[in-house]
């Protein structure tokens, strides 16, 4: 098919303090990335960065980010990721230490989403073993149960229509 092919980088933003998660937003990440690419690859890199790179999804609670970039030069961006040491945003002087941990590189957003779901579930399973108290165990178990496929399918949205006659 004739289309622009992309790569989706699924990254985890790791910060030392949870407080700084508050600062996480789409624009901050975009700027950080741009700066990192610029540092690593110079003007050429930042020019390529301008083409088709955007942040598709961001979850500040888990620190998960989807970055979309063109397949032609995704390595350029990918390779710049390890050089990120802190978040840079235009308006902010607070220096937030962080690093990007790239978990997955996908060809479509769907595969990336699938991977993320699987990865998260894996994390939860892993956590279940490490739980110290019963209460924690309960919580994690409940969370695991709530995110099964059947649970999602159940909530089928049925549309309703309101019709009203209005004329003179």
């Amino acid at each position, binding site marked *: 098919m004739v289309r622009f092919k992309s790569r989706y980088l699924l990254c985890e933003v790791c910060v030392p303090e949870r407080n700084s998660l508050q600062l996480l937003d789409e624009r901050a990440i975009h700027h950080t990335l741009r700066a990192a690419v610029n540092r690593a690859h110079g003007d050429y890199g930042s020019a390529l960065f301008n083409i088709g790179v955007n942040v598709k999804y961001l979850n500040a*609670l888990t620190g998960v980010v989807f970055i979309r970039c063109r397949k032609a030069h995704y390595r350029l961006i990918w390779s710049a990721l390890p050089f990120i040491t802190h978040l840079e945003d235009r308006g902010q002087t607070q220096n937030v230490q962080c690093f990007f941990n790239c978990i997955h590189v996908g060809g479509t957003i769907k595969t990336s989403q699938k991977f993320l779901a699987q990865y998260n579930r894996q994390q939860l399973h892993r956590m279940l073993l490490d739980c110290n108290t019963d209460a924690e165990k309960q919580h994690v178990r409940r969370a695991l149960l709530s995110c099964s496929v059947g649970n999602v399918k159940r909530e089928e949205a049925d549309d309703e229509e309101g019709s009203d006659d209005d004329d003179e």
Partner: protein
Amino acid sequence: MYRLLICRAEYSPYRMMTGAKDRMRQKKMKNQPRNVTYSSTGRSVERGQGSHASGWVRGHQAGGQGYSQHLPKYITASHFANARAAEVNSMLKAVNKPAGSCHVFSALPKHMRRRAMSHNTKRLPSRLREGAQKLMERSQQTEKEKKHLPKRRSRRARRRHGNLLLEFNRRQRKNKWLETHIWHAKRFHMVKRWSYCLPHKPTAKTFRSSYRAMNTHALLQDLSYFCCLELQGSEETILRALVRLTSKDTGPTFGAELFLSGSRQGSVHLYRADQFPHGSLGPADFLWRPRAPHTSHRQLWIWIHPALKAVKHLSNNTLCHYSGAVSLSAQSDADKNAIVLSFNNGLFCLALVCPRQKRKRDDEDCINAPSKKLLGDCTRAAGTPVRWGSVDTTITISDLTMEIVRYRLIGPLAHMVLTDTLQPANEDKETVEPSGFWWPNHSQDQTNMKLHQQQTDTFQLLRGVSSTGEIPAGCVLGLTVDDPRLSLPQRRSKSLPDLQPSADECGVRDLTLRGVGAHCSESALWDASVRHSVTHNQMAQQELNRMRSEALVPGSRLAAPPQSRVPVLLVHQPGRVRGEERRHWGSGWDLLLPKGWGMAFWIPLVYRGVRVGGLHMSVKHSQFKGQPHFPHDYPDCPAGTLFQLEQEAELIEKFKRRPPAKRTNYIKHGCLAPFCCPWQQLTEEWEELMKLNEGTSSICRTRPAEFTILRKGNSAQHFSVQEHTIPWSLRVLRQLSVWCRPSRSRRATHPPLTPEVAAELQGEWGRSLMWVRLRLLSKGQPALHAMVCVPTVSDLQLLLKDGRSSGPLEPLHKDHVKNMLKRKHKASHASEGSSAAPNSNGSEALPVGLIRGVWPQPLPSVLSHCSRLTLGWVQKGDFSLAAGCGEALAYVSVSGLLHTLLQQPQEQRGIVLLRNPSSLQYRYAQIVVDI
């Protein structure tokens, strides 16, 4: 602890896109996960959701609290787990739900797709079969459902008479239709106002021709939407109850002898009980039924505008629920003041509240109801009372809204149109058996026949009158006429006056001098049973057509069957009663008919060559007459206030529709109130200024009272010459009228204008507004809400030097609001640059709802805002076709006017300046107070 905000993931510049593309995109992104962020920064919120009108916001937010929120240092297992689980859920949703198209097989890779999968689900892999099956069922079901649904019937079926009537009946449940609705709807732009569907303006260009019709021939209007109230009881009790609603200061009231006899229609201005001159409600017309011999029982019809009715309903909201719930007896128990209270509150509310509650049931009723043409007020539920009695005063009120059709003919030849159209009924000689129809029984009585003969004679005399204006104002003539459809001309023609002199010169002169005799005003229309019988025994159009086709000579007059006698009332409407120019302009006749006969009279009238006008023409008519029009020009009435609010909203809407660069900057033009005039503020400021001028140190301000309007009744009754019988307000107006004229030879009857006299008037009427007419001296076309200003001495000298001078200019004002906006804009930019400074200095808080180019709400002094003092504002202004120059009707402050007149030289009295809201040019105008 902290809030989570979910916002759209995409970083799209197409935030503002609308329409199909947007909807497609929304559908596509429906199941995609949204960003999850903490709310602290605030900007992602602004960006993500397109609904905020503020657009892009940069830098620090004034309201944001920096990054002060703190999360707990350590993470708990439950929090961690929940966040993951939520994410997994959203991802699964995104993965599993189909995005744009909802075909199941699009989930398959291409090499696994097969032909005709959508028809045969067995071709799909079994794991997808279930979903596909469901989809297919749904698509088939919708087809079936479509069959089940009441399919839109074919046009042919819809236009079948019975179905069409049902449809019409359904459509007129919310807004009442006049009987001429269909006729009008084909030719006019219809508007929904006051819960009626009313014609506004013809679709054809008819402004000038309508004016010519009013000027030389006749203009026809359907005024059936006016509400009629019937009061029955003994004369004194009715008068005693009503006297509290009116004041003799505004002119003759319900009790004037001329009106009591029933030979004239009167008009009054209603006030809330005992609150004159405050609490003004609105104008009303009234008509007494002539006294019947041997009884003191009287009938009174009061015609009010529907806006007045609606406002009463609104203002007494609490009471109306109460009175709507209780029955008749309880209600009349409650009012101690009997009729006055019920007049003020109960009646109007009852009529309006009840239909609302029963709406749902009506729907079901109407489906089963036979298709029958609705007559009268069809929004009213079946059980709603239309009649209320009062226990202690024996007065009954009935609501005759839509029971009586009222047509108005305006123009000097209105009487010719009437005499051509209406044929007085001839008495039936061969009445043998008493039938169900009213006329044969009625004509048995000798006295009735005598009266009928007199009325017929008077009606015939009308042909001899050359213009409608010659007849005394407010005359009433009762009549019984044949069905006008019987003598419908074959084609439309214009009725013209007879040029040969009438036979009875003497009778005509008597008619024009004395009007119609009181006994001739009696009509069977007053009788509810006759009205009912006439309405329901109307001959069908089909029958009439058959008779017409059987007539031996085509186009000849048909023989009148016994049921086609209609009692009507002709009521003369005074034309221009004020002032000296164009007296009696726009006079006419009102034709009152029983309901159901609307179209039967309408078509014959139209066939006599009249023009038909809508609401717009009513406004213009009163403008040409120099009269205030209800509810447009009654800013002291609740209905008028409501209208002004609506008008303001409409004008602002219109203003905002223009691109910002093309809008008038009213601030620069020094126009404070282009949309709605602050009358209260104006009167207060003038009063304050006068106090300052006087130098009396009465700093103790009286409590802020409502402004009033100095008015006199519209009825054109000629008062007796004795000074003492003339109402107060009229005398004041007369004095002002004389003072406004730049007179050289003053009549001795009026005292000259001196500061003492002015101060005296000031004390009495300082808080009042006054209706004046302004005639422009040279160029200029005044617009709505143009300012009336006081000329300075140099302005007057300029005029003296050059009579055709176009007037002074207002210097351009500074737009401080624009600067404020700019400063704010700059400040926000700066704060973004220097980033971290949290919540920079609060620049002046801008009021919300600020429109660029319009003064924000707390207005500065309206009086002295411009280089000339403001006297008032124009309510209606236009180029007057009658006068051949710009003319405006305005309200001015009485104290302001006195102040102005005192300072002007004798020969330049009453010269003021007019300036349109969208211009800087002042124009000279002459004030005329019409009496």
